């Protein structure tokens, strides 16, 4: 069986698994990293949203064989590593802290994906030299079946100011 190597939350990992197993299952079923959640398996619910080389991606829709050895995969568990200020923030990324301050989570199942998507959205908007607007928030595709959208919007606004 092929060896798959990539960098997960800052550490190189190697897994023996076929190329076409999607990254989500490598993370969850083989590596025991369960922050990214299954919600659809077809990249429409976005519950598994994580980062690849700093950009949002959905591991349910990427074959592990398509990852390069040098690819940095970051899940919610590794998000604080992406923030310089995390240490003084109790080990949390500013977006996670914003989620706490706004008491966003209800059942919490979608929230790791929501936070990872929010961080990537803020970075994307910054690359475009803008700040977050209602239209950007309207474009977020992560579903929350508890309907926590109002607080998600408020938290992103706060998180974006502290990133």
């Amino acid at each position, binding site marked *: 069986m092929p060896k798959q190597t990539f960098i997960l939350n800052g550490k190189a990992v190697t897994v023996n698994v076929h190329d076409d197993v999607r990254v989500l299952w490598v993370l969850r079923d083989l590596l025991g990293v*369960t922050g990214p959640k299954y919600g659809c398996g077809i990249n429409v619910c976005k519950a598994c949203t994580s980062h690849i080389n700093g950009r949002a991606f959905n591991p349910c829709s990427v074959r592990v064989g*398509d990852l390069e050895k040098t690819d940095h995969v970051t899940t919610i568990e590794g998000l604080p590593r992406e923030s310089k200020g995390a240490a003084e923030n109790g080990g949390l990324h500013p977006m996670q802290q914003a989620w706490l301050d706004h008491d966003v*989570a*209800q059942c*919490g199942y979608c929230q790791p994906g929501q936070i990872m998507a929010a961080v990537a959205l803020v970075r994307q908007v910054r690359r475009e030299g803008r700040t977050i607007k209602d239209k950007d928030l309207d*474009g977020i595709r*992560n579903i929350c079946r508890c309907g926590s*959208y109002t607080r998600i919007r408020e938290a992103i606004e706060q998180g974006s100011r502290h990133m």
Partner: protein
Amino acid sequence: MSLLEHDLNDDTAAEPGGIGRRSFVGYVLAGTTLVAAADVALGSPARAASGVSGPQIADLYDLNDFVGDACLPTANLITVTVNQDGTASFALPRSENGQGITTSTAMIIAEELDLPVSKVHVTLADARPELVFNQLTGGSTTTTSTYTPIRVAAAAAKGALLEAAAARFGTEQHRLLARGGVVQGPNGAKATYGELAEAAASTHDRQVEVTLKDTGDFRVIGVGQNRLDARDAVTGKKTFTTDLQVKDALPTMVCRAPTLNGTPRRLLNRSRIAKMPGVRDIAIVDTGVAVRADTFGQCIDAVRAMRVDWAPGPVAGLSDQDVVNELKAAELPLAAVPDVPPLAQSVESSFVFHFRSNSALDTNAAIADVRADRAEIWSALKTPIAAQAAIAEAIGLPQGKVAVHVVQGGGSFGRRLFFDAALEAAKISKAMGKPVKLMWHRADDARVGRMHPMAISRVRATYSGRTLLAFQQSHTSVETDWRHGLGEMLTAKGADLPGGLGNLTFSQGIFAMTTVLPYDFAAKAQVMNETDTRFNTAAMRNVYSPDVRTAGELVIDQLAARMGLDPYQFRKQHLSNPRVLAVLDAVADAGQWGRSMKPGTAQGIAIHEEYKGATACLVEIDCRNKQTKRKIPDGVGGPRVTRVTFAIDAGLPINPRGLEAQMQGGINDGIAQALTSSMHLRDGHFLEASWDNYFYTRQWNTPPKVRVIVMPATTGTPGGAGEAGVAASMAAVACAYARATGTVPTYFPINHDGPLHFKVKSYVPPIPPSPVNGLKKTY
């Protein structure tokens, strides 16, 4: 006088029963650390709220009844434990799915025990058959049913701590003050609860009298508290069923039939499937063909490769219109209103409410480890006792040999009232002889999982001049499955009589117990009939009320128009419940009712009374082309609700911050049910198979402006929260839509009969392929 002395000397303590009653019996149980207890049925309205009539339980457990009661009933006690590290722990016999009950329960314990909320650890209890009725989570009854017993247990614990402290300090209890987990005595004497826990422990079970805190002295209850599990949720540490690591419980999925509830006859390519990468085991069960593999991804591939000979399901060939016709045929006629004045007039309308999925984001899932002599189950279960009994029966073990662990659920919305995955996982584990971690694919969770039944609701309002004579409503529904009963097998069996008869009685009981029309009509009659037992249904958040109230409020608006009154003024003039009036006025004021709105946009207002509370909702909707013509990839736009003002009087709000969150969620449910989300039945199965087909509210349809007003405490006792936001929201959106477009819809959601907004996914194979293009969609 200290707080404590005031408590002990309060005269109201002697009152038996009633809201003001504060004296109860608790227990200190034998143990090495302090364990205090109360009867979980104490003061519980759960039976009445669930449709089984009975006396006020508070009366049953009157203090006087206990005097001379020689036999200490330990089996059905719930216990608060004070640990030697100064924390308190409590295993809540309910199911947490996001509604916030672990946090609100910790607050209730913290309040009565005078301990910081952060030091109270609430977990979910395993199935405890001895609790009988008292382990069902539903109908927004958790806090109304557990509020008093949990306080009694916590108060008994505090009493024991004070006793121990008094002995230690050589003083009398009334000279002590408990605050923040520390007991203070005279001359600076101090001891933490942790230091006292061992001394406060009892060598034998003993009955104690407790006096609960006066509500006026509350410091925790009524003050907004962030969720205690929030940090786990935002760091990925919060654990759901499929996150659990149970030895050898490998990923398992099921291949299901191309018609709803079809059954497998034979797997035609078993040897090919068995050789697929990662595949370990295959088993045929009554619901489909199960496969166990190293990863869920390999399960998906195996399910997609299966060729199965299927027996068709019971609704093969049926479509939406067939069900509508069935419902019309079963509708109970509206009787003629007697003694109507000659000039009386009436408004009559009928509405169709289509099937809606109660699928949560965390799909049906369970871990099962079934052995020859015992079984162990893990799942998010709102009726764990009924689940335990059904599983025991299915796998041929005594109920006591089936351990059932209740796991936190990723949403429920009614879905987890049933235990479909737990039962199926147990059967698969038995058939394979191995532990399994069963997860339903989203496509199965959407199509085969339970849903809110289709219903029609006919309303007639009769009036003369400005006098309201009669309000009649005949609500007809595909059967709502209540076969989980009250969470344990006795009532579950009662609901399972032949021909759906047992269940109909149950449904009608629930309908009668939840349907209130607060308007001042001289005569009111709301009746319900159900038909067709072939679908996979269950209660969905707020059960009958969103549909019943949407139909009712739309007719109220038509009636108001006939009388030349605006919707707010009509409601103000014809409502007499002061709590309903207060929330109505609150939203009208904060939401600027009557402000000038552009053509194609409008306000809508609605009220609702349920769960010992009152709600009102004012929405603004934009139905102009710029909204309705929006192009949303893999989704729908449609009219946009732009602003919502919502008010709730929940009697005694335990956690206003959590209550606000529940209302915000309920608003999004109401919007979805009015505008976008439904299941289409076509030729024997449902079309919608994922979130790009089933249009629950998304960010592009959620209101940019939302304000929730939590009214100050009005009754001194907590009302329901989890479901309370839906009915008024859905009704207000419908009313706003009717006013903006000038057309009263006749079916919901309003986009159901339009062209489909998605390409229907395959039935064979029953689940879609896993995409490979994820790296092209990064941002």
